[in-house]
């Protein structure tokens, strides 16, 4: 018997020894990923120009893995053209490609390892504050003064609005040329017409409308298949939201923007209350709970963490209402591929309990460009942005005469099919300085913009109310640029807790009992201290509530 013990022992040990190193390699993957990503953008290094010494600068570029024909981002037309323009100004530009979805991980790893590009980008203002506080970012005031005259000319208003921390500049924020960009409500006009119904104007009317969509099935897709309100899992990856309905329930955006995709809360009588601490917030989630119970939102929404089903629901024509960032024409076009008669139109904000109407509007500032301390040549980073500012049309519309022509302030595509292939899928991500190139277009301008489509008049009719509703009802949240230690400590846990807890409240059998868990958990994670700190800041900046 002893012999077989030994043999078994040997086999087991031998195999364990073979597998152990494999396991060790698996554990080290994190670091490996970061270094391999930085190595991908090396195409420019080889093409050194002969004249003089070039300054090297490495720039982040988001990869949305949406290349239509397998083309590599680094080999695209606009990338090549930009590198050429930069070389004229003595810069050797290398684009460091990172997957769009890994923004925060990659940035954190780069900040920790010091191997990152010279320009890193994020929309996360809190991340910028945190890095600035820890001393991880170059101060940009003097550099911008010295090397960025064209930047200042181009995006003055957004520089004024954001990018500073404790009075010093750590980020160059891109400017939104039109602030009509944020979550907005859309409804299927053709469904309403079929049922002879008017567009809902309050949350209660929305319920009646959704119910009718479900019961009368105006799309003819089969009663059981209708998902009246398309909504994905409440998570960081969500592409459809409930901003509009929640505004309609009486919650406003007086708090700082966090990772939670919903109105943040109200500033009432000099005190800030987070949405979950408001009775309006509670009533709103009771409303969602009711929708869930009656099958008016997807029964499976909590597991739709990638928004796959959400997209499928509205594009396949089984949904009649949604709240998302796309404009109504974009989603109409998508939906018409399967349902040719579909027509999504803008739904104006609901009349709120206090009689007002409001919706979230984008702030004038957007994407933040930062130069990490690990960058050896911060001046080159600013110089690159200045080159970009000079050539801004390249990243706003492509190469003039090749991809677009200018007609009274409009950049009109010459050949949309060619553009779709050559530039459309990435060139906006190269634009680190502006989002869009003009303010809200007039109806006439829209008709011109969409002259290549078969129905420019209809598109203008669909889009005009969209811009109008932002102009009429849009509100912007506060930007607090002073340190908030309590928030730094708690906000991550609060956010994570709320994503989980709110989902549970929506599908709860007993809503009131579950809501108590939401509130008590929020308090346990430091929610009340968080609110008190926000209150202090709002009072200090003399904030006027967006609730009225």
């Amino acid at each position, binding site marked *: 018997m002893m012999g077989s013990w030994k043999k*078994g022992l040997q086999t*087991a040990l031998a195999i364990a020894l073979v597998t152990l190193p494999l396991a060790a390699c698996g554990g080290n993957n994190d670091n490996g990923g970061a270094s391999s990503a930085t190595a991908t953008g090396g195409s420019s290094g080889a093409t050194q120009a002969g004249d003089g010494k070039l300054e090297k600068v490495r720039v982040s570029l988001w990869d949305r893995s949406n290349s239509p024909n397998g083309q590599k981002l680094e080999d695209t037309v606009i990338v090549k053209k930009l590198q050429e323009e930069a070389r004229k100004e003595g810069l050797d530009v290398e684009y460091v490609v990172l997957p769009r979805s890994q923004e925060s991980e990659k940035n954190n790893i780069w900040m*920790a390892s010091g191997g990152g590009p010279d320009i890193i980008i994020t929309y996360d203002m809190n991340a910028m504050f945190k890095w600035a506080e820890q001393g991880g970012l170059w101060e940009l005031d003097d550099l911008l003064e010295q090397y960025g005259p064209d930047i200042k000319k181009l995006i003055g208003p957004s520089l004024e609005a954001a990018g500073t921390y404790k009075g010093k500049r750590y980020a160059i924020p891109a400017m939104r040329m039109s602030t009509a960009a944020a979550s907005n409500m859309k409804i299927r006009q053709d469904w309403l017409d079929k049922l002879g119904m008017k567009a809902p104007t309050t949350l209660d009317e929305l319920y009646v409308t959704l119910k009718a969509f479900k019961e009368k099935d105006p799309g003819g897709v089969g009663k059981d298949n209708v998902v009246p309100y398309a909504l994905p899992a409440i998570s960081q990856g969500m592409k459809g939201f409930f901003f509009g309905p929640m505004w309609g329930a009486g919650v406003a955006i007086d708090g700082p923007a966090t990772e939670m995709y919903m109105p943040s809360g109200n500033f009432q009588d000099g005190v800030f209350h987070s949405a979950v601490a408001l009775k309006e917030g509670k009533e709103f989630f009771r409303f969602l709970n009711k929708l869930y119970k009656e099958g008016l939102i997807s*029964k499976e929404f909590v*597991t739709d963490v990638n928004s796959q089903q959400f997209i499928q629901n509205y594009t396949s024509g089984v949904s009649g209402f949604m709240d998302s960032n796309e404009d109504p024409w974009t989603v109409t076009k998508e939906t018409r591929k399967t349902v040719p008669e579909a027509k999504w139109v803008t739904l104006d904000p609901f009349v709120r309990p206090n009689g007002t109407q409001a919706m979230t509007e984008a702030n004038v500032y957007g994407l933040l460009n930062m130069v990490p301390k690990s960058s050896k040549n911060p001046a080159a980073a600013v110089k690159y942005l200045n080159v970009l500012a000079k050539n801004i049309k390249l990243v706003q519309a492509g190469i003039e005469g090749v991809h677009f022509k200018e007609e009274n302030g409009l950049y009109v595509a010459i050949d949309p099919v060619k553009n779709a292939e050559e530039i459309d899928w990435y060139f906006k991500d190269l634009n680190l300085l502006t989002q869009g190139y003009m303010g809200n277009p007039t109806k006439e301008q829209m008709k011109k913009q969409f002259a290549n489509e078969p129905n420019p008049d209809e598109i203008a009719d669909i889009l005009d109310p969209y811009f109008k509703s932002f102009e009429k009802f849009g509100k912007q949240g506060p930007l607090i640029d002073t340190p908030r230690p309590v928030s730094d400590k708690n906000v991550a846990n609060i956010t994570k807790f709320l994503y989980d807890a709110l989902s549970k409240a929506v599908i709860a059998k007993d809503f009131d009992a579950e809501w108590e868990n939401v509130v008590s958990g929020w308090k346990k994670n430091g929610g009340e201290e968080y609110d008190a700190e926000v209150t202090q800041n709002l009072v200090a900046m003399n904030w006027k509530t967006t609730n009225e």
Partner: protein
Amino acid sequence: MKEWKKNYDLYLLLVPAVVFFIVFAYIPMGGLVIAFKDYNLFRGLWGSDWAGLANFREMFSIPEFFRITRNTLLLNLLGLLVCFPAPILLALMLNEVRSRYLKKISQSMLYLPHFMSWIVLGGIVYAVLSPKYGVVNQILRWLGMKEIYFMADQTWWVITYTLSAVWQSAGWGTIIYLAAITAIDPALYEAASIGGAGRIRKIASVTLPSIMPTIVILFILAVGHMVSIGIEQPLALANSVVSDVSEVISTYVYRVGIKQGEFGLTTAVGMVQSVINLCLVVAANHFAKRAGGEGLW
């Protein structure tokens, strides 16, 4: 010293392995210092201020700490109870298959899930169990039963988690046992046959005792992983609604440590985890020896 001189060539062969462990296992342990620091990314490991035991104190004050520890233990314990015996049974059954082709084919099929990433497997699990579109619920409906939202129900989620782990790993796990089984002396089986033993009797009296040492050693190793848990599976299968049971140490460290940059705190969590694992291995080894078998050392 004499011994060293005499067998220097053998020791030379050992060098690569020793270097490997020093470079990839022992040097990185220095990073544990982060657990005792108020870690600042930009000032680095040595530039950051000492924080004493503050990170550990904070760890115990997180409302979630006990939940994630409990979930890790629960999922691992179920894994040990269900996933550990699965490959043994499977190996015994495979060993009894007489047709070589059938054996080869079924073995290959069983290994397949092991080579797929959990992200893919997670997608498959979600699709198969979807209440509206999934095949399992279609069968339930066809049998006249109510559909079950498996992935949003805590109990079902835990069951799904455990069984999907079996699906993924059981086939691969048989390799070790099959290797051990082939090493058994055929004379033992012949003797058993002469003694009039049937198949079942042979399994119980020859095969199982012969592979017992392998089982014990793998069991000790498995116990050593009780407190640590891979990240891929919980991450791929979790969702908000079941976070009460699905949030485990590794996913927490990933979300809070990597995504939010709380390195000190999460290093402390990782360190406590390793210490507990070490204790468990030592204890398991001790008991294995006392029970009369052989331990790891």
